[in-house]
C-alpha cells in the first residue's frame, strides 16, 4: 500500500496571519473548482478534451462543468490528440484561453509537435507578435497498476523545451491556486497532475486563490538537509521527514511546484541553511529534472555544500505492472529515509 496520502496541507507560511477560510476537498475537486471559477470569470476560457462532458473526465476533474457551461465551452472531442492540442494553439493565438485535458501524459507524444514546434515557439518565432495563453492539463505517474503506457513521469521532456512553463502541484490547495495562475498566464503552460493525488484531501482556500507560477513552497522546515521534490513525492518526502525527525534529523521539504520557471532563490536559500541536498522524483533518474536541480545547486552554491548533492529517482525502466514491481522502481518513503540518513550520516 502506498503511504497515507490524505495529508492535510499546512497553511502556506508567510500568509500574514489573515488566512482565508478553507474547505477540505479532494485534489480533483480543487482542480474542478479552479476551472469553474475561471470559466465564470472569463468567457474566453474553454475546456477541450476527450470524455470531459457527461463523463466528467477520466479522473472527474471536469465533473459537472458540462451542465454549468454547456457543450461549446466544455468541448468534448474525438480521440485526436494532435488535432485537439493544435486547435487549442490556434484558439489561443486568436483570443480564447483554452485548457486542453489530455487523458494521460503518455499520450503527449501524439500531440508533441503542436506543443513543441508550435505553442512553445510561436511567440519567439514571430518576433513577439503572438501569445499562446493555453494550458495543457494532463496526468502522469505510477501506482495504479496501469503499466508502462499509462504511468510515466515525463516532466523532463517538457522542461527541455524553451517557451513552455511547467507546473506539478502536490496538494489540493496548490492544485487550485496553480491552475488558476496557469489559466491566467499568457504562455503555454504544461500542467502535470498525478493520478494518485486526485483522491488526496486537503484544506483549500475558498473563492479566488492564486499561487503565482515560479514560487517554490517550503512544505516543512528543517535544518539538517534539504529535500527538493514535486508532485506525489512531496507527500512521500513529508512522511519521510516525519520519520527522520524521530531519528533526530530535521529535513526541510521544498516543493518546487513550478519546474519552469524554477524558483532558484528558494532552493539556494534552503541549501545555504542546511548544506545538504537530496532531490527526489518519480521520473527516471537519467536526464531527469533532478539532474538540473543538482547541477544548478552545484554551480551556484558549491561552497555551501557539506556533501555531494544526491538524487533519488525512478529506475531507468518502463513502469512494470505487478504491484510490488511497480513500487520497486520509484522512490518510496523508506527509500527517502535511507537516502537522507546516508546524506547526513
Amino acid at each position, binding site marked *: 500500500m502506498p503511504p497515507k496520502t490524505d495529508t492535510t496541507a499546512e497553511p502556506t507560511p508567510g500568509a500574514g496571519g489573515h488566512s482565508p477560510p478553507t474547505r477540505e476537498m479532494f485534489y480533483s475537486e480543487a482542480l474542478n473548482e479552479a476551472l469553474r471559477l475561471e470559466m465564470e470569470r472569463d468567457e*474566453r476560457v*474553454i475546456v477541450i478534451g476527450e470524455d470531459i462532458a457527461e463523463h466528467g473526465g477520466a479522473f472527474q476533474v471536469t465533473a459537472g462543468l458540462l451542465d454549468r457551461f454547456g457543450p*461549446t*465551452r466544455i*468541448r468534448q*472531442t*474525438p480521440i*485526436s*490528440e*494532435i*488535432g*485537439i*492540442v*493544435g*486547435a*487549442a*494553439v*490556434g*484558439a*489561443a*493565438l*486568436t*483570443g*480564447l484561453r*483554452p485548457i486542453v485535458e489530455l487523458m494521460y501524459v503518455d499520450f503527449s507524444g501524439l500531440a508533441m*509537435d*503542436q506543443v513543441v*514546434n*508550435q505553442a512553445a515557439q*510561436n*511567440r*519567439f*518565432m*514571430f*518576433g*513577439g*507578435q*503572438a*501569445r499562446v*495563453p493555453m494550458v495543457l492539463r494532463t496526468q502522469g505517474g505510477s501506482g495504479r497498476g496501469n503499466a508502462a503506457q499509462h504511468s510515466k513521469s515525463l516532466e523532463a521532456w517538457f522542461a527541455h523545451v*524553451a*517557451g513552455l*512553463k511547467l507546473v506539478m502541484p502536490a496538494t489540493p490547495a496548490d492544485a487550485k491556486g496553480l491552475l488558476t495562475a496557469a489559466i491566467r498566464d*499568457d*504562455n503555454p503552460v504544461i500542467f502535470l497532475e498525478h493520478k494518485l493525488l486526485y483522491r488526496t484531501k486537503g484544506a483549500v482556500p475558498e473563492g479566488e486563490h492564486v499561487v503565482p507560477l515560479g514560487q517554490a513552497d517550503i512544505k516543512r522546515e528543517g535544518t539538517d538537509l534539504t529535500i527538493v521534490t514535486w508532485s506525489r513525492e512531496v507527500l512521500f518526502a513529508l512522511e519521510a521527514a516525519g520519520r527522520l525527525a524521530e531519528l533526530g534529523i530535521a529535513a526541510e521539504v521544498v516543493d518546487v511546484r513550478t519546474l519552469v*520557471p524554477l524558483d532558484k532563490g528558494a532552493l539556494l536559500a534552503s541549501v545555504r541553511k542546511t548544506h545538504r541536498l537530496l532531490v527526489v522524483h518519480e521520473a527516471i533518474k537519467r536526464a531527469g529534472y533532478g539532474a538540473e536541480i543538482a547541477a544548478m545547486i552545484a554551480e551556484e552554491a558549491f561552497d555551501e555544500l557539506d556533501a555531494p548533492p544526491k538524487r533519488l529517482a525512478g529506475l531507468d525502466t518502463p513502469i512494470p505492472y505487478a504491484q510490488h514491481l511497480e513500487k520497486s522502481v520509484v522512490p518510496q518513503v523508506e527509500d527517502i529515509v535511507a537516502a537522507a540518513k546516508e546524506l547526513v550520516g
Partner: protein
Amino acid sequence: MTIDRATALDLYRVMRTIRSFEERSTQLFGENKIWGTIHSYAGEEAIAAGVCAHLRDDDWITSTHRGHGHCIAKGADLGKMFAELLGRETGYCRGRGGSMHIADTSKGNLGANGIVGGGIPIATGAALTAQQLGTDQVAVSFFGDGAANQGTFHESLNLAAIWKLPVIYVCENNQYAESLPVKRAFAVENIAVRASGYGMPGVRVDGRDVRAVHEAAREAVARARSGKGPTLLVADSYRHEGHYYGDPRKYQTKDEIEGWRKRFDPIADARAWIVADRLAGVADLDAIDLSVVGEIDRAVAWAEEGPPASPIKLPDDVYAT
C-alpha cells in the same frame, strides 16, 4: 464566372507581386544576402490571390514553408517581409523567424510553418475562436499535397466537420512533396474526394485559373461565414522552381519542367483572358508590372536600411509577461 475589371486587375497585381517577390528573393539568395532556405511560390500565385481576395483583415490564415505568397495576398508589407529574410530588426519577426516563420498577426496571418501539416489544426482552432465568440470571421489553412497525408489533416477535418467550424482547407497540389510525386503518394487521383469521408464539400479547381479559384473560394468562404461549416478546396498547380532554392531537381526531367512552366503559368493565363475579355489592355498590365517592380525595389531598399536583428533577450523574447 464573370469578373469585373477592378477585381481582375487586383488579382493580377497580387499575383504579379508574389512572382516579383519570389524573383527578387531568389536573386538576394544568390547574392548570399538571405540565410537558410527559401521555397518559391512561383507558379502557384493564383491560389493565394484567388482565396485571399475574399478575406478580411480580421480573418485568419495559416501558411506553410512555401508561404511568401499567402503572406502577400493577405496584405503584408513587402518591406517587412524582405527585412525578415535579410535578418533585420525591422522584419516581421525581428529576424527570429525567417522565411519559414513569417507571421503578420495584424493581418490575421498566423504564420508560415516549418512543419508540414503543422498549420492545419491551428487554423481549425482559429475557426473555433470565431464560432465560440460568435463572430463571422473565417480561417483558411493553406497546405500542400504532402501535408494532406499528415495525421493533422485527418484529425482537423473531422473536428471541423463535426463542429461545423468556419474554416476552409486549401490544399495546393503542386504535384510534388519535395521529391515525391503525388502519383506515388495518393491512391486516388482527386484529393478532393477525401472530403466526403469527413462530411464536407470537396471541390477541385484549376489552380492555374485565378478566376476558378476565386469563384470556388467565394462559395467556400460564404459557406463558412454563414455558419454552414468547412470546405476542402483542392487546387491543381505546379511549382515552377525547385522545392527550395538550389534544389538540383533530380526527380524531374528538363522537358517536364519546361513543358509545365509554359503550360502552367497563372500570370500568363490571366494576361490572356484579361485582354481577350477586354477588361484591360496589354499596356495596362505592363504598367502594373512596372509599378510592382518599383514597389519591390523600394521594399528591398527599405529592408536593407534596417538594423540587424537585436540580440536575443531572455526571457522576454520567449515568454510573454
